[in-house]
Structures are given as C-alpha cells and as structure tokens.
C-alpha cells in the first residue's frame, strides 16, 4: 500500500483541549478520503490540524513518511495544498493571478512567475476548465467558478495531497458534480491524495474511496465507502430519529406519518415513490402494496408506509399475500391507485383495485383528492 498521509493516535482540538481523539487514518496516493458527520463534530478541526493550522494535542501526523512537526511552512507547501471554506475577499485580482499564487513556493525573491510557472498556471486552469476566466476579477465570478479557481490554485502548487474543507458548500448541484469529477480525475491521473469534508452524503458516497465518520470525541467509523453507507451506520452517526437514510439512493426520507392508516396505496414500478412523499407532506398515514421486495418503490415505502404488503422478489403474488392485502384493504376507507397499466407481473394489483370498488371503497388517483 502506498500510504502518503497517515495519523497515529491523533488527538485534535483547541487550546490544548482534545475535541476528538484516537484518529488513525491512512491515506493512499490517488485516493479520496471524505470526512462526514454532524455539524460541529470537528471535521474542520481535523483538517486544520493536518494542514498544520492547529497544533496536534497528541499523536502524530506523517506526510510522505515525515512527521509534520519536523517540517516548516515551506516544506509543507511542497507536499500539501488547501482549499478552504472561508470566503476569500480579494481586491482587483484576476483569476489568473489567484491561481498564480499557487506557484509561490517555486518563485524567486520577488515572486515573479517564470515561463514554466505560467505554463503550470495555464495547465491547472485548463484542467478545472477556467482558462476562459483568466482575465476576470475574482470577486466578479460565480461561487462555482470561484471554487474551481481555488482548486486550480491548489493544483498549481503541484502538491501530492490536497485538503479541502467542504468544497461543495456554496455550489449548485451541477457545479457540485463537476467539481467532484475534476477532483476524481485529478486523483486518478496525477496520483494526488485527497482528504476533504463533505455535507452531502449522496455525493460523499459516490466520490469517496474511504470515509471517516466524525462524531464528537471519537471516530465513529472508518472504512471503505460502500461499507460505511448503510442505513444503520448513517442513522447512528447522525442520530437520525425523525427521518431515515436510504443507502440504495444515498438519499434521506422524512419522518413516517403517525396514526392509524385509512388509505391504501396501490403502487409499484416507480409509480408510488412520489405519491408516498406527497402523503408524507400531508402527514397522512397509509398502507401500500402489493410490492415486490425488489420493486423500485419498495425502499421509500419501507421508510414512509405504516404497513406494507409485500411479496418476495421474482415470485408471483401468492394467495396468502393477496389475502393479507384484502384484509388491509378492509380496514381502509379509500384506495389511491397509482397504476395505469397492468401486465402479467402486477395482475393481482389490478384485481385488488377491482375488489376495492366491489367493497365500496372510494377510489382516487391523486393524493390531492384524499381528505382524511
């Protein structure tokens, strides 16, 4: 394993007081490690300590085999560069000049850029797709562009590792995806080790090789992204009680509606998910079925429905299941039928809808039509 950055029993905090202890990470070249966890859990504190902005409380940090205690600012500047959360305020500086500051460790006494420095600036700006902005004032571009300029600045420093503190915070979804894609390509192509904090779990899961879960005092979890992003681990990390985390979509569901359900939702094949969420907003409890366990509506139904009538994956709906559905139907006064086409696989949902009519239940097609 080609470990570039590691910590040994690291404790971080302010003014000599440890906030989090027992941090042991190993960051390989060309990989991305993401710190996730609740607000105020100390993600930034860890990153600031690694970038040597804060003193370690105890333990050690090694970059390229050397302890950072043995390095001064200049030594560090050749190994590691940063992209910070604080909004940078500049005065009459063009984007190219901002990126050019990344060449600081390489320039002479007066900081004048050589042709090679300029070539590096251009290369980094092209890599992050901001070369066209080079003459623009840094304060007069969008947040998404600014963030990419700062990434170009960090790349231009030719580091072996980049530390980013919530780099996607001010970005819209398009810029988030673009930004992280650049980061991924850069890590892969240049072998740069990336360590960053992210708020967006969905993005964290998709971008990270490894994930460190930070939750006050100690590290809650550390491992491969696919092992960390499970329902239990994420819900525990964030003390999620009011809603739920869906590992399949990397998305969050709101709190399940309370009360005795009087509404039966017939759904399947993706017709139900939007409806379930509508009903959640109306705080309207519901039963749903008949769903196969591999149905695309199943995960959201599981988080939001009071009761589910389900069938095992790839199996025809059995008589027992159908009987359970009918029984649930009898306890309701309304049926919301999301289905508009039927085939062999959901034939029994069609008969369920017909049975509902026979039973004299009100049948509606949209959640707005329902009143409790």
């Amino acid at each position, binding site marked *: 394993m080609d470990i570039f950055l590691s910590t040994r029993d690291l404790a971080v905090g302010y003014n000599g007081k440890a906030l989090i202890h027992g941090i042991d990470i190993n960051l390989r070249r060309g990989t991305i490690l993401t710190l996730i966890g609740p607000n105020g859990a100390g993600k930034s504190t860890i990153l600031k300590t690694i970038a040597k902005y804060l003193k370690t409380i105890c333990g050690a940090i090694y970059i390229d085999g050397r302890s950072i205690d043995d390095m001064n*600012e200049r030594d560090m500047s050749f190994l590691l560069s940063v992209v910070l959360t*604080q909004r940078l305020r500049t*005065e009459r500086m063009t984007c190219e000049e901002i990126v050019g500051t990344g060449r*600081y460790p390489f320039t002479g006494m007066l900081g004048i850029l050589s042709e090679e420095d*300029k070539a590096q600036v251009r290369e980094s700006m092209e890599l992050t797709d901001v070369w066209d902005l080079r003459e623009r004032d840094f304060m007069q571009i969008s947040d998404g562009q600014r963030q990419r300029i700062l990434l170009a600045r960090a790349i231009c*420093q030719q580091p072996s590792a980049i530390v980013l503190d919530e780099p996607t915070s001010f970005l819209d979804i398009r810029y988030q995806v673009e930004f992280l894609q650049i980061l991924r390509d850069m890590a892969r192509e240049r072998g740069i080790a990336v360590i960053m904090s992210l708020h967006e779990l969905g993005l964290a899961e998709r971008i990270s090789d490894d994930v460190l879960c930070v939750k006050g005092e100690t590290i809650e979890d550390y491992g491969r992204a696919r092992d960390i992003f499970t329902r239990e681990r994420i819900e525990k990390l964030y003390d999620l009680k009011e809603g739920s985390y869906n590992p399949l979509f990397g998305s969050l569901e709101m709190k399940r509606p309370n009360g005795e359900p009087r509404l039966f939702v017939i759904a399947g094949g993706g017709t139900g998910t939007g409806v379930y969420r509508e009903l959640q907003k109306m705080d309207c409890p519901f039963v749903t079925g008949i769903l196969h366990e591999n149905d695309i509506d199943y995960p959201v139904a599981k988080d939001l429905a009071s009761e589910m009538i389900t069938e095992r994956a790839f199996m025809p709906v059995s008589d027992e299941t159908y009987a359970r559905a009918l029984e649930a139907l009898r306890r309701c006064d309304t049926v919301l039928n999301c289905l508009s086409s039927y085939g062999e696989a959901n034939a029994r949902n069609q008969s369920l809808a017909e049975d509902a009519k026979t039973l004299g239940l009100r049948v509606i097609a949209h959640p707005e039509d329902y009143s409790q």
Partner: protein
Amino acid sequence: MSGKGTDSSGRLLRYGTVIASLAVMFLVLIGLNIVIGSVRVPLRELLHILFTGGGGDTWQGIIWKIRLPRLFESALLGGALALSGFLLQTFFNNPIAGPYVLGISSGAKLTVAAAMITAFGAQRSPGSWFLVSAAFLGALMSMGVVLLVARRVRRSATLIVCGVMIGYICSAITDFLITFADDASIVNLHNWTRGSFSGATWDDIRVISVVVLSASAVVFLLSKPISAYQMGEYYAKNMGVNVQVFRIVLVLLSSVLSACVTAFAGPVSFVGIAVPHLVKALLNTSKPIVVIPVCFLGGSVFCMACDLIARTAFAPQDISVSSVTAVFGAPVVIALMIKKRGREM
C-alpha cells in the same frame, strides 16, 4: 485575438502610463514648491541659488533652509504614510485601515508630545532620533491596543470605530499634557499637533531619509509574502509563509513608517487610506510588487500637492497640511465605505 501577449503588454502599458504621469507630477510639484511661496523669488535668481550656491542671503536662506527641506520632508513622509496605510490594509484585510483612523498616529503623537515636553523641561532641544524613537514607542502601544481589539472583533467597521476612539483618547491626553506644559514649548507643540511639514531642517531630513528609505526598501523586498498574505492568513501559510513572523514584521514596519511621519510632521490624516486606494484603482491591480513603489510615489505627490495648498491658499498664513489632506482624502474614505456597505460591514 486577445492572446496572452496582448493582455500582459496592455497591463504593462497601463503601469507605465501611471508611473510616467506620477513622475511628471512629481517633477512639476518640485518646481512649483520651490518657486511659489509668500516671498517671490525671481526665476533667474532661483537658478543661480540652486545651481551655483550664490544669490542673495535672504533668498538663499528661503530656498535652502525653508523650502527645500520642507519639500523633501513632504515627499518622503508622504510616501511613508501611503506605504504604512497599504501595509495596515493588508494586515487587517480592510480597505479603510490606516495609521490615522486606527489611532496609531495619535499614539505616536502622545509619546512625541511627552518627549518634547520632557526635553524642553530639561532646557534642551529634542534630537531627531529621540523623537523618532518616542513616536515608534507610541505607535507600537496604539498598535498593541488595536491588535487586542482585533482579536475580539471580527467586524471590520467595529475595528475602525475602536481605532478612532483610541485616537481620541490619545489626543485628549496629549491636550492635557500641553495644557500643563511650559509656555515656551506650547507654541511649538501646538503647531505640530495639528500636522504640518513646516520647520523641517536638514538634520531632520537626514534621519527621515535613513528611516523611511530603508523601511520602504524592506517593504518592497517583502512584496512576495505580502502578496501571499493578501489571500488571507491560511492560504499564506499554505504557500510557505511563516505567518507569525511575517505579522510581526508587518506591524513593526507600518509602525516605524507612521511613527516617523508623526515625529516630524505630526498626525497627517487620510493619506494612508486614500493614496493606496487611488493607486490600486489607477493601476487596476493590487499586486504588491507594482503597488508598493507606485504607492510611495503617489504618497509623495499627494503630500507635496497638499502642502503646496497648505502653504499658499491663505498665504502668508500656513494652514495645517492635515486639513488639506482631509479635504481630499476623507471623500475617498467615504466612497470606499459606501462601496463596501453592500458587503459585510
């Protein structure tokens, strides 16, 4: 079409034009400051005095003992003020920081007044180095208070208000000292506390040249770390700057520059804010390597012009140069605050 060459040569042309215009103004102001005054010296006589050392005694005295030292003083101290302001703006990342509004000039004024009173009390005339040292001490004390405040307040407007308050306190104590000083020293002190380039001697000029020129040279050599610091402390550190040491150096340099001004000319207002701002606007950059020398030149030109007005507007009565710099400098500060209001003031 707009290749890289065109962009950078356009920029160089702009720098060149600004520097050339300022240099022309500089030379013109030298001429005007020598020629114009309450006593008219004929041109032929003037050239005679300047280049052969001859001429009538009175006229020679006026040129060599009064106008030329005053001219040098305004040029050197103007440059010092502008640089000091630029350093403080960089340090606090705040465009309206300057030695006057942060109370640093007033702190220097207080200790210089105390030093003068002590010296006069001992029946001695205070030496130039003695005054500069006293001013430096006062400047550092004010700066210390400002730094303590800055650690606690994040809002830049609050910092400025605190600086102004520190200035008032120092001025009040200075007034108090002057009230109880001997009659003999009062006239001297009173003129000086309002800010003026009058009464400069060649001795003063020697000390000023040494202090100001060497400090300015150091500032210029630091333009690389200053450029890093403009990106904020964290980024500067990541670029390899030893931020702790650098901050101390910045404080010392800006204090020594503004202290030198106060020791010889008293507090001169707003030059430190107005000049760097105008220079950056003219050059359309804040790159220290260009801004630092042009700031010095701009400060010289600004103060020479203001002093010319101070000397001649109500001749033979001198008005304080600080009044003139305030008239031209304060509007710039107001404009800056209005521009900044939209952001996080």
